[in-house]
């Protein structure tokens, strides 16, 4: 059973059928017990009633007695449940009936006057409230009874039997007689078994029909799932991230959360897929121009030769094109990597020291005509939360922009300070700046500022910076340059807890 794939139908059917089977079993057991009890009760009543009937015969004197006895026996034997086995003993003398039904062992010739040493048989009479005295309606009938009818188990002809016994003094005599009527337990049992088998059959039939009904009911109940499944299967043939599960109004409430969650996932998948597609198309687009440059200039080299002026121009233009391609490739990889990775550990970083290092490094490589300055307004460490390597890359990236897109005699000022909540690095330049209406768009990949499409760069620098800032939990703000021209970039980091 463990190797079968789990089946919802089996689960549900089992969940319902097993308690049901248990109930049916319980019901069967109760029925069997009730049957047995009722049957035993019935037989006992018959026995006791019959023994009293016979006993009453001896309440009359002879010779009525002699004619009443066969009549009573005759009547008893003609019933639907005939009484066949009876005996009447006086002492050891059999007066009537079957000798094989001897008196009980504790029956003696002389009676020591105890009335009812065995408790008489009693029955629950719910509907009839007739008062009886020791089993007899007429108390006079009971006066001569020393032992009212009681029931015992005994053996008759070697088989177990139920025996009703009554002991009385016959009218006009002094001795005691014992009247007994017996019924084989086997007979009773056979009756019970028949009844129980019928009940069992009904129970089984109920279980089987219920099981089948339930099985089909489940299939009907699970139909919305089948419909959803077929939707997905159809979609598989033409898989597209635009696929959504359609939920109709008749979908059960239990499925809606699943459908909604699935559609939400597909939406995110579609967005990611679109973003990737756009990125790939943009990237391939960006690469085509440097490739075209290289190809054209190679043709020029071929036609004019390397020593012609055109050839010489080609020999400088081709390496530039290759450089552009390389830069583009590197930046695309950087962008992909900066967006890709999961959470990372944020640690306290001294922004002041970091900014100082980065500035010094870039200043050394920048043209000497540029005026690059660094200022830490706090006169001490400026602790922010982040990661040193990434933060350094971010600052370097933005500082590179300030230097590269600047005039030859321009100026770049780097400042660091602490706020209430934030640690801030500011990079201020007086280059061409970014027009305010384009300050939102520059974060888009491959966006070039209008009029500056042929400036060096790939259009990926700021998107990479933004991705780095997002990972560091930092924000970048673009403002007008503090000198009135150029650009002022503010990078706000989270302050490290003290």
């Amino acid at each position, binding site marked *: 059973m463990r190797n079968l794939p789990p089946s919802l139908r089996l689960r549900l059917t089992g969940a319902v059928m097993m308690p049901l089977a248990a109930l049916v079993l319980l019901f069967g057991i109760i029925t069997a017990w009730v049957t047995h009890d009722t049957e035993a009760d019935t037989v006992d009543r018959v026995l006791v009633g019959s023994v009293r009937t016979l006993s009453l015969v001896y309440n009359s004197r002879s010779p009525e007695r002699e004619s009443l006895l066969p009549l009573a026996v005759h009547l008893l034997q003609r019933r639907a449940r005939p009484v066949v086995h009876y005996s009447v003993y006086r002492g050891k003398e059999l007066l009537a009936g079957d000798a094989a039904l001897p008196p009980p062992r504790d029956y003696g010739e002389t009676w020591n006057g105890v009335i009812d040493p065995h408790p008489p048989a009693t029955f629950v009479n719910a509907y009839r409230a007739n008062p009886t005295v020791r089993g007899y309606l007429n108390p006079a009938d009971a006066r001569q009874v020393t032992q009212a009818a009681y029931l015992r188990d005994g053996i008759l002809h070697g088989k177990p039997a139920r025996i009703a016994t009554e002991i009385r003094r016959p009218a006009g005599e002094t001795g005691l007689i014992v009247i007994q009527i017996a019924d084989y337990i086997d007979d009773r049992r056979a009756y019970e078994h028949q009844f129980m088998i019928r009940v069992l059959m009904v129970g089984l039939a109920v279980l089987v029909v219920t099981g089948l009904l339930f099985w089909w009911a489940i299939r009907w109940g699970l139909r919305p799932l089948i419909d959803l499944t077929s939707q997905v299967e159809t979609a598989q043939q033409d898989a597209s991230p635009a696929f959504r599960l359609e939920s109709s109004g008749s979908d059960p409430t239990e499925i809606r959360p699943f459908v909604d969650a699935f559609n939400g996932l597909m939406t995110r998948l579609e967005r990611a897929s679109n973003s990737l597609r756009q990125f790939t198309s943009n990237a391939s687009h960006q690469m*085509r121009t440097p490739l075209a440059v290289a190809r054209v200039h190679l*043709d*020029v080299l071929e036609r004019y030769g390397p020593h012609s002026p*055109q050839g010489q121009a080609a020999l400088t*233009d081709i390496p530039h094109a290759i450089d552009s391609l390389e830069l583009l490739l590197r930046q695309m990889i950087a962008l992909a990597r900066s967006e890709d990775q999961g959470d990372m550990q944020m640690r306290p970083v001294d922004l002041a020291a970091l900014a100082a290092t980065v500035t010094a490094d870039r200043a050394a490589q920048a043209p000497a005509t540029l005026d690059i300055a660094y200022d830490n307004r706090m006169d001490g460490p400026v602790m922010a939360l982040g990661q040193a390597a990434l933060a350094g890359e971010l600052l370097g990236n933005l500082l590179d922009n300030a230097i590269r897109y600047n005039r030859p005699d321009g100026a770049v000022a780097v400042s660091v300070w602490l706020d209430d909540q934030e640690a801030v690095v500011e990079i201020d330049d007086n280059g061409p700046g970014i027009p305010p209406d384009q300050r939102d768009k520059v974060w888009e990949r491959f966006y070039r500022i209008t009029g500056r*499409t042929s400036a060096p760069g790939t259009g990926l620098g700021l998107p990479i910076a933004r991705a780095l800032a997002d990972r560091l939990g930092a924000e970048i703000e673009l403002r007008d340059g503090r000198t009135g021209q150029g650009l002022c970039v503010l990078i706000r980091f989270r302050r490290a807890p003290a």
Partner: protein
Amino acid sequence: MRLLLVEDDERLARGMVASLEAAGFAVDILTTGEDALKLADQEPYCAIILDLGLPDMDGLDVLSQLRARGAATPIIILTARDMMDDRIQGLDRGADDYMAKPFHPRELESRIRALVRRSQGQLDPMLRIGTLMFDRSSRTVYLDDKMLDLRRRELAVLETLMGRPGKVIAKERLSAEIFNFDDAVTPNALEVYVGRLRRKLQPSGPAIRTVRGLGYMIEAA
């Protein structure tokens, strides 16, 4: 033949000009759509090469506007966008041909030549007058089956004259088709080239006649 190249990437433009000049074209460069709209009609360009990725406006809009005002010059579009929809859009909006970057410069030239032939109604790439044969594709000239050694400008002049045999072409027109903006042209330059051509075409080639005050003409046959 004079071409207008509208392309904002300097390096690419430089390379393309060098390549096209080697193929015998005179090329002017413009870097914005505005400029292209202003100047496309000013000179007798035999074809315009239009890059779609211009800094100030979409090349397709330049194309539409040129066609809308009746410009009949063949236009070939150059662009890094290479999806089929882009091609269809370019051609539907009036381009005569479409080349995606990166392209092979030789292919570009051939396509330009094909467009020019079609627009001038000369389907045969070979120009013939008598035993003088000008193969426009390979830029070679044969007289009596012998190849003539002609310089670039001489080829250009001969090609223009042979394009309209028996018709007078004004001097200014001839100049405009052979020199681009940046060529420093002395007033006599054209005469010098025509003179050289005449010499090389003798004795069995067609004569080039000067019609004073009007221009030049090559005899039809």
